[in-house]
């Protein structure tokens, strides 16, 4: 950008205002988004911003005002209500958080759409401009709007900074915060309130649909670059501001780019760049790390082989060995390349004719490596400073990669290296590790194609190694190749073939998933029919793979063990979902798709536990709310999509309240009854323990019972009356006496 452009930018009042406003929004949302992300509430911001729409419409309907302050207040109110609904649904029912979020989001948004279309039908034109809250219209920002945003956002950030340490503790370890005496619940509400403020501040510029991206994107990008909270928040603010200003400027350069989407696109670019380039968590860094680790393993495997050969021949710096021998020993990778790299590091030396020796430096390195390994082996995890919490998985994977070679030194270099010190059998280098055999073989089976590869290598390796009759069979890693009777690994290794077959069976069983691709060659029926067919096909497929689906949704680990591929089933499910989404998308819009996908199953899940019944009920409720919503929309002449989503919400609400077992009403009644039962039992126990002692005069006085049991006075009186009614006790001489039934109750409760 030339200086002229900068000057032009500063002289352009509108652009300056818009950019400043967008930067303020971005910075505020970035900082608060950090906490939202760390508390796994990023999507709550999504729900809040979508839920703001009905508030805006309602305020306009009720007051006829379009003053920003009033509309923002309305947005804040329903946004807040949406957040409360999400937490309330999660806390009081079995609906998981993501479903609750999707449901609240789409239902509130649908209701907002309904109201908006209702408003738009009105004869006067005063409603013009309300729809800018959908996708935002930054170009309409005035200096006064920016000032409002700055005050709102700045206030939120100020509170956050003041209570930094409290919010940090709350996000990291709420139980500990409670222990220290912090009012956890109130802080929680305050933090959510700050987030609502940040969202609402940005609605006018970015719109309800895109605002949540501003909460999510800068924080996600910032997390990639740092491992500390304060820098992360600062960075998120910078990213947010940059995305806001950058997006605003970018949209000013091209006449047809709306500002809101441009801002969000800018933020997305920041996220992508961070995901790829970040120094430690980035994808490139990960690839580089893996590559280096693999190279180190490969080099050390060959180095240890050389070391072993040298040691076996008992020479200080051994006679040269043929590369072919090393190749036969190696688990994989190009041995010659490794040797050359070893030479480059001064650990090995070429002796001409493809012969290689280990150097003194190489021996030292091999010794150091082995020592480090065995130290790590004996001292457990803590001693290994380089073994961060997440690493074992990597290590396991690496080890597996080398496993197929089973007994070749590649594997030996991996933890079983102590045994490498044993003198090797001159007949074959793969001999002499009897102890290590069992467990290694056991893993070699399920490892990817372990048998086949080991087999092949055995074939290859046998040639350069003539004496190895024993060594050959052993290296092959085939159970029973050597001493079939005594091989302890035979039993475990023998699992291999059936496992393979099972897998194949699993795969074959899943093959019918393929026709999932929507067929385009179908003779063109009406769209709705096609949609219906596609949806039906989706359902049919869900029926076909019922068992697999059930297993994969229930326990991915078990499914994998049984030979089904959870990934495959997962993607199958995803494509089912996408087919359904495509079928209904053009008919009713994105929001409704979310509502119809989340709402009916969530409601059905409140009504039943059994999967078949659940599917049926969900389909039924989905159809019912679609038809009901359609008629509602026709009747009121409002947005069909909005009305359908709102109907889904109503159906879910009904299920949430009235479900026979899990409904809130049923639960409340049950809880009251249980509380009474429980109190009766406690009373009986209390009396049975005290009625014979000298303290009975105090412990058994009906007007003092509530003190001993720490009850409210009124509740204690109610419990006493209920107990009398059931003949658990009687009042006698100003004291309460247990009847036989009461004593039995106490005994029963105690021995329960």
């Amino acid at each position: 950008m030339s200086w002229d452009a900068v000057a032009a930018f500063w002289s352009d009042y509108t652009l300056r205002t818009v950019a400043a406003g967008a930067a303020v929004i971005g910075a505020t949302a970035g900082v608060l988004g950090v906490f939202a992300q760390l508390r796994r509430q990023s999507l709550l911001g999504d729900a809040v911003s979508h839920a703001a729409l009905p508030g805006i419409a309602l305020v306009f309907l009720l007051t006829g005002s379009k003053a920003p302050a009033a509309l923002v207040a309305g947005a804040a109110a329903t946004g807040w209500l949406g957040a409360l609904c999400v937490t309330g649904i999660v806390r009081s029912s079995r609906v998981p958080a993501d479903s609750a979020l999707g449901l609240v989001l789409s239902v509130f948004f649908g209701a907002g759409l309904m109201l908006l279309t209702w408003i738009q039908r009105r004869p006067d034109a005063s409603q013009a401009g309300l729809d800018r809250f959908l996708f935002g219209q930054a170009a309409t920002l005035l200096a006064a709007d920016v000032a409002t945003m700055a005050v709102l956002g700045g206030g939120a950030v100020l509170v956050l900074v003041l209570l930094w340490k409290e919010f940090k503790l709350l996000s990291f370890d709420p139980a500990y915060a409670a222990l220290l005496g912090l009012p956890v619940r109130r802080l929680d509400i305050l933090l959510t309130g700050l987030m609502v403020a940040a969202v609402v501040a940005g609605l006018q510029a970015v719109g309800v649909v895109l605002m949540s991206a501003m909460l999510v994107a800068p924080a996600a990008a910032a997390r990639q670059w740092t491992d500390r909270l304060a820098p992360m928040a600062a960075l998120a603010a910078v990213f947010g501001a940059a995305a806001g200003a950058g997006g605003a400027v970018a949209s000013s350069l091209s006449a047809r780019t709306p500002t809101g989407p441009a801002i969000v696109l800018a933020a997305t670019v920041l996220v992508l760049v961070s995901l790829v380039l970040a120094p430690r968590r980035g994808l490139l860094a990960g690839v580089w790390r893996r590559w280096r680790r693999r190279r180190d393993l490969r080099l050390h495997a060959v180095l240890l082989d050389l070391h072993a050969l040298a040691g076996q021949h008992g020479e200080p710096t051994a006679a040269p060995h043929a590369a072919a021998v090393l190749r036969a020993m190696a688990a994989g990778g190009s041995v010659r390349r490794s040797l050359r790299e070893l030479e480059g590091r001064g650990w090995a030396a070429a002796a001409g004719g493809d012969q290689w020796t280990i150097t003194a430096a190489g021996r030292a390195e091999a010794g150091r490596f082995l020592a480090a390994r065995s130290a790590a082996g004996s001292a457990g995890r803590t001693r290994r400073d380089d073994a961060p919490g997440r690493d074992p998985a990597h290590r396991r994977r690496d080890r597996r990669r080398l496993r197929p070679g089973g007994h070749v030194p590649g594997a030996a270099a991996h933890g079983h290296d102590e045994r490498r010190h044993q003198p090797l059998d001159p007949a074959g280098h793969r001999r002499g590790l009897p102890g290590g055999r069992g467990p290694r073989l056991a893993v070699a089976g399920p490892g990817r194609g372990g048998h086949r590869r080991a087999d092949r290598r055995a074939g290859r390796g046998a040639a350069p190694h003539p004496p190895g009759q024993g060594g050959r069979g052993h290296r092959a890693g085939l159970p029973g190749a050597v001493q079939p009777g005594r091989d302890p690994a035979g039993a475990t290794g023998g699992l291999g073939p059936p496992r393979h077959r099972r897998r194949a069976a699993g795969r074959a069983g899943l093959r019918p998933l393929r026709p999932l691709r929507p067929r385009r060659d179908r003779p063109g029926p009406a769209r709705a029919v096609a949609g219906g067919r596609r949806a039906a096909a989706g359902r049919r497929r869900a029926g076909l793979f019922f068992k697999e689906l059930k297993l994969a949704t229930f326990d991915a680990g078990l499914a994998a063990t049984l030979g089904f591929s959870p990934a495959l089933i997962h993607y199958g499910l995803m494509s089912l979902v996408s087919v359904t989404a495509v079928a209904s998308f053009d008919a009713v819009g994105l929001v409704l798709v979310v509502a119809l996908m989340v709402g009916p199953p969530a409601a059905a899940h409140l009504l039943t536990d059994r999967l078949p019944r659940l599917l049926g009920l969900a389909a039924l409720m989905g159809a019912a709310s679609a038809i009901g919503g359609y008629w509602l929309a026709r009747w009121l002449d409002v947005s069909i999509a909005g009305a359908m989503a709102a109907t889904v919400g109503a159906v879910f609400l009904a299920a949430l309240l009235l479900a026979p077992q899990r409904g809130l009403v049923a639960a409340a009644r049950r809880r009251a009854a249980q509380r009474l039962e429980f109190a009766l039992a406690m009373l009986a126990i209390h009396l049975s323990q005290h009625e014979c002692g000298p303290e009975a005069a105090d412990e058994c006085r009906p007007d003092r019972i509530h003190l001993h049991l720490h009850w409210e006075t009124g509740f204690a009186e109610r419990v006493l009356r209920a107990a009398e009614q059931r003949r658990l006790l009687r009042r006698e001489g100003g004291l309460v006496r247990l009847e036989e039934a009461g004593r039995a109750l106490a005994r029963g409760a105690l021995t329960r």
Partner: protein
Amino acid sequence: MTAHDPSPAPPAPHTGAGLAVAVHDLTVAYRDKPVLWDVDLEVPPGLLLAVVGPNGAGKSTLLKAILGLVPTAAGQVLIHGEPLARARDRVGYVPQRGSVDWDFPTSALDVVTMGTYRRLGWVRRPGRREREAALSALERVGMAAFADRQISQLSGGQQQRVFLARALVQDTDVTFMDEPFQGVDALTERAIVELLKDLRARGRTVVVVHHDLQTVPDYFDWVTLLNVRRIASGPVAEVFTEENLRLTYGGRVGFLERKADPTPAPGGRDDPTTSHFGRIRP
């Protein structure tokens, strides 16, 4: 409870005077399932107490109820003779390791510094003094070298020791630890035991939820056997008998043959939801 105070004032016998922890008639229920029934517990100051019992016996819940982290249906808790609200400065807590998000962008030193937050009060930030206190606590658990490391890059045992250091920095009279030995390596286990003995030597009280029955006599002075109700509580020599263990574990335990209670998979937690389904053995 036979000691009776004749004064008409609210129930007076349980003043908890002279006791580090006094729990009276504590009852906790998750939904309709009682998790703790009418539990009494008296812990004199200056000793190490193990809370032992089968899975789902309410051990973690007992700790959380004492610390006010779960609502109680009935009962009373006194810390050094005072209700929790007035004794917050005197209690520390080492939660189970699985209870926090280890990917949180924070360092070991940062986590330990959280132990000073209560002393700091609202709004004020930890300064150099707090940092130094946290560092010396890290040193006491042998973790000073890892002060700046992001917490997910620590091994399980190291993470546990960071939690311990946080409790140390709080420097409380009574510390509650929820299975500090679970899933840690031998080195950390030794470090924890040393630390416990050090705390005892300085007159502090430590209540530990413990799983490994065999080490109870070595590590602890007192033991509480718990299975929804309190089975027994007192000095290890008197209370830790096979008879009591059988009562606790439902008669199917020859303690001398068994190595440890069948623990859940590492990271498995005793939180409200699992306890709700917790098996209470007959």
